[in-house]
Structure formats: structure tokens, C-alpha cells
């Protein structure tokens, strides 16, 4: 949109400032600056460069779907109920993205949520959750079971 200089400064006062982010799947998303400021990786860039916000900031490690979820989480002030609608894959993607974007509050929130999910669950459940292959040898496995018999008791249903 074309604006004269006078109109632009007026618009800035009235509208919420936005920053354009470019996700890994090539989607340009306009995000409120208050949310962007939680992303240390973007914030430091914006602050240093006093930037031209019209140039999209590239986020090669975050998909548009994950960014959508993150924006909604921040907008909802980290609402537990909303987070509970996430699939396991979404939880992990948000976790990794929060780490990459250096969003301290979000990382803390999502790590707590995942820890709560894993609490009192079997080792097998944890492996499935993170798609981890059990690389202990049968001998090591037997040794672990022998010395930690009680570890495998008192579990919640997966």
C-alpha cells in the first residue's frame, strides 16, 4: 500500500507494529512485535539493525504450522487447555522451535508440559514419544532390569 509520510507516522501510532517472518515452508507471516520480542533470536536482530521491517526475517527451522501454534500460545498467555489440543508431534516441534527461537518462557512452559506427560510412564513410552531406538544390548538391558527391578513397577497406563 502506498502511503505519504504523514499518513505513515499516524498509522504507526494507531496500528500495532508488526514484523514479517519467513517460515521454512516459504510462508510470510506478519507477527505482532510484542510476540516477536519474545523470540530472542529475532529481537536481537531487530534491535541492532533498527531494521527495515518490510524485509521478512527468515526462520529456516520453523514451519508455518509450528509458528501458528507458537503465536496462538503466546496470545493465549500459555493456556494449558489450548496446549492440550496439541499432538505429540506438535509438542515436539514447538519444543525444538522454542529452543531455536530462544523463547525462554515458551521453552519452560512446553518442557514442563512434556515432562508432565512423561511422568510415571514406562521407558518404552518415552522411547515412542521421542522416536528413540533402544540401543542397549540385550545383556545391558538385562543388567538394568536386574539392578532396577522396581523401576518397572508402579507405572501409569501408557
Amino acid at each position: 500500500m502506498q502511503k505519504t509520510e504523514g499518513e505513515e507516522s499516524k498509522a504507526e501510532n494507531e496500528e500495532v507494529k508488526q514484523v514479517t517472518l519467513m517460515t521454512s515452508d516459504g510462508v510470510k507471516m506478519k507477527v505482532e512485535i510484542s510476540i516477536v520480542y519474545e523470540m530472542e533470536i529475532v529481537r536481537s536482530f531487530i534491535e541492532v539493525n533498527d531494521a527495515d521491517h518490510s524485509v521478512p526475517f527468515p526462520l529456516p527451522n520453523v514451519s508455518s504450522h509450528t509458528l501458528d501454534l507458537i503465536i496462538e500460545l503466546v496470545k493465549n498467555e500459555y493456556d494449558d487447555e489450548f496446549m492440550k489440543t496439541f499432538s505429540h508431534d506438535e509438542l515436539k516441534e514447538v519444543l525444538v522451535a522454542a529452543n531455536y527461537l530462544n523463547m525462554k518462557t515458551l521453552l519452560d512452559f512446553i518442557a514442563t508440559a512434556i515432562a508432565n506427560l512423561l511422568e510415571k510412564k514406562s521407558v518404552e513410552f518415552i522411547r515412542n514419544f521421542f522416536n528413540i531406538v533402544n540401543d542397549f544390548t540385550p545383556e545391558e538391558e538385562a543388567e538394568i532390569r536386574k539392578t532396577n527391578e522396581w523401576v518397572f513397577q508402579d507405572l501409569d497406563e501408557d
Partner: protein
Amino acid sequence: MDLPRDVLCTIFQKLGAIETLMRAQHVCSVWRSILKDPLLWHTIDMSNSGDMDFQLGIMCRRAINYSCGHLLHINIKNFGTDDLLRHITDSTNSLQGHENKIMASVYVDAEEPLCISGDSGGGIFIWEIAAPFRQDPLRKWSEKKDWRFSGIHSLTVSKNRSLYTGSGDRTIKVWSLKDETLICTMTGHKYVVSTLAVCDKVLYSGS
């Protein structure tokens, strides 16, 4: 997906020491090797409901071993034992103060949990063991030195907050934990008083 090490460490911290030791370290070899990083075990918070103390002791020892002497904070509420405390003092260089060999230590399960240790030079040290963990003793004093005999050999605490020390000079001394004053000296043993225990308002000693 491979989780970055930092992210995994964050999750381990959220899981807490007990869950981590019980299950996370059995997931795969990568997790186990990350979990053996002493930096993860600066703080060992084993907050618990008090219904599984046998396992907690074993797990706590493992956690202390993982800390490789870098332990700074520990919460062993509900399952602290003399053995465990001895293990802590043996494997950490964080509680520093004794100039002589530590002969005995005792855990005081009070509102503010304490550790009391006695050394071969007669030194008695009181340590705070609730977070934040202090590296220097809360208080310290010595029993009267006698060149013939060597220091404290056993310790116990009664419910009314008196400290009993078994000494190389064949006596048992009773100290007030409030102001470290010597309340009385009990004699009778012919050799070093090497063990002490309080049970149902009776003090038992062995030499």
C-alpha cells in the same frame, strides 16, 4: 527427530531427579551419557512423598556419584540416613572445614535439616543441608583437647535437641544444640566410645 542436548537437559530438569534416575537414564545410550554430565547434578532435588525410601537411597547415591564432587544443593527429605550423609561428605568437596579426619556424621531431621560431623581432633561442625547449600559450617566448636586421645568417634542426636558425642577419651559428652554448651560428661567406658544410639528416651553406647 534429534533433540538438541540443551533441550534434553531442560526436560531432565523438569522431570526431576527421581523420574530421571528411574527411567530417563534407561531410554538409550545417548540419554544415559548426557545424564552422566556432573553439571546436571549440581542440584539434586529428591522431593518425594515419603513412601519409597529404600529406592530413594539407592538413586540418591547414584546421583551423588554422577555429580563427581560438584554437588552444591541436595534435598533428601524423608529418607536421609547416616550412611547417605557419609556418602555425601565422602564424595563431595563442597562441605569444607575439618582439618582432621572426619570420624562420624549424623543427620538431624528437623524443620531445618542439619548435618553434624565430628573429627579426630575433637572438632564438631554443624552444617546446613537445605537449599541453598552453604559450603561453610553453620557453627563449629571443639571438645577439650587431650593429647592422649583422639577426637570424636560417634555422634547421635536426641529428640530434645541434645547432641551426644562418643570420644576417644572414653567419655560421652552431651551438648546443647542451641548454644553448643557442654551439658554433662558421662564416664564408664574403658575404651573409645565408638557407637551411640538413642531410642525411646534411652541412650545406648558401645565401645
